């Protein structure tokens, strides 16, 4: 019983975890330029994750005439794709504000990624998860790995840049660093998981792959907590 409650709470973590930084935003109303893209990211992803989890729940509970046959399930993959693009877009915006020499690149990368996604969906015919071939209604681990890799590149560039600076670019409670820290941990694991996902899909048991999604969710909670700390520290300033 307790395990089932815990499981339900954890399954909805992609929604409630976002409420932590959003609550900080609403209560303390921190005002800094770098917060704008983060705020947009939080609200957009909350909406998308609500759709994802709602559709997943409809399938699980077999509401609205959905049967246990996978073919009849409602498809939420488009929201995963939108989620991935939103993450890249808003964090590119965030990094373009950080004065680390990535302004131009951070403008080009989301557009290039969007172009790659469009080309990919028009030529690729299969992918993992619940397939609806040749459309944005399936997700590709390679695209998710690319998105995670690009975000990881931003994060490492940022940390490398501030390591090389003679003067400190932040204090011990620097708010953007918390966001970058959370994002680095989240994207590094995502990158690793999605890079090998298709291979592991063929070699490992489905339960193990589901566990990797649990890991993905746990790290998403960490990312949200780090964003919340960053926003809270900005309130202290």
């Amino acid at each position, binding site marked *: 019983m307790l395990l089932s409650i815990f499981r339900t709470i954890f399954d909805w973590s992609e929604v409630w975890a976002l409420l932590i930084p959003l609550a900080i935003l609403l209560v303390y109303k921190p005002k800094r330029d770098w917060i704008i893209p983060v705020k947009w990211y939080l609200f957009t992803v909350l909406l998308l994750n609500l759709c994802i989890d709602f559709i997943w729940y409809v399938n699980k509970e077999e509401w609205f005439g959905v049967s246990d046959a996978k073919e009849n399930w409602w498809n939420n993959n488009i929201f995963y794709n939108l989620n991935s693009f939103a993450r890249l877009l808003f964090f590119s915006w965030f990094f373009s504000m950080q004065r680390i020499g990535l302004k131009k690149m951070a403008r080009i990368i989301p557009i290039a990624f969007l172009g790659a996604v469009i080309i990919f969906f028009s030529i690729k015919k299969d992918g993992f998860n619940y397939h609806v071939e040749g459309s944005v209604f399936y997700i590709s681990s390679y695209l998710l790995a690319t998105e995670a890799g690009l975000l990881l590149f931003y994060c490492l560039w940022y940390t490398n840049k*501030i390591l090389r600076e003679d*003067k*400190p670019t*932040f*204090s011990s409670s620097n708010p953007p660093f918390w966001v970058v820290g959370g994002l*680095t941990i989240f994207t590094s694991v995502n990158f690793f998981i999605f890079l090998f996902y298709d291979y*592991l899909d063929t070699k*490992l048991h489905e339960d193990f792959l589901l566990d990797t999604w649990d890991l993905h969710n746990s790290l998403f909670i960490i990312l949200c907590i780090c964003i919340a700390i960053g926003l809270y520290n900005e309130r202290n300033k």
Partner: protein
Amino acid sequence: MNETNSIQTLFILGLAFMLLIVISFLVITFLSQRRKWNLQQEMGRLKEHQQNQLIEAAIRSEETERHRIAETLHDEVGAILSSVRLHFSNINSNQLDERGKGLHEKSKELLDDSIQKVRTISHNLHSTLLKEFGLNEAIRNFLNTTVKGTLVKVETDLDNSYLVQNAETDLGMYRITQELTNNILKHAHANFINIKSEMKNNELELTLHFNGNGLSQEEFEELRYRPEGLGLKNIQNRMILLKGNILFEKNKKDNRIILTIPVNREQ
């Protein structure tokens, strides 16, 4: 089955290794930045300390110069004027005609005035009273001598629980009060000044309340950077040394300047 297990183990190990590298990188960055930050803070503190030392040296030399001028005025000019007054008194005015008697009287009055002025200036420059009777008495005496003969009404309400804690602090507060009162008399066109002091926990709050044209905090900040705002700059420097705060409040015909300095009651 064995192959599956080894792939699973390899994957978990790879993931853990990746996490370890990333987290270590973040921790190193964080620690390095904190070290640089602390170093910068330390440099800032040293710079501030050096700046305070310079201010202190400037204020000390100003005080020394004031003392020197005060002593010269009192011991030399004052003595000469007193001697002149003595010689002048010995002149028998009965032998003079009416015009001569008038001039004699007038000269005596001017001489008395000069002696009095020299004494007042010398006392204001020299802080003997402050050293002997403390800040409250020095402020009262300064106000009496400065405002005497003007149309300005002065009131004082000074907290007697404040005792001399540090000669330098008292001197700083005294000089600031002098400068501010002189400024009020010169620029504010006030006809009422009230100086009130109050001990609040471990702080002494001294408020100059006056009517006329006051200064707002913004105006004070702006004026003290102008070359002609030397007095205000000195006030600010002294406040930095006293580790205190100065707050200007400007209202219609009702202005306040609030000085707050930390006081160690145990001293």
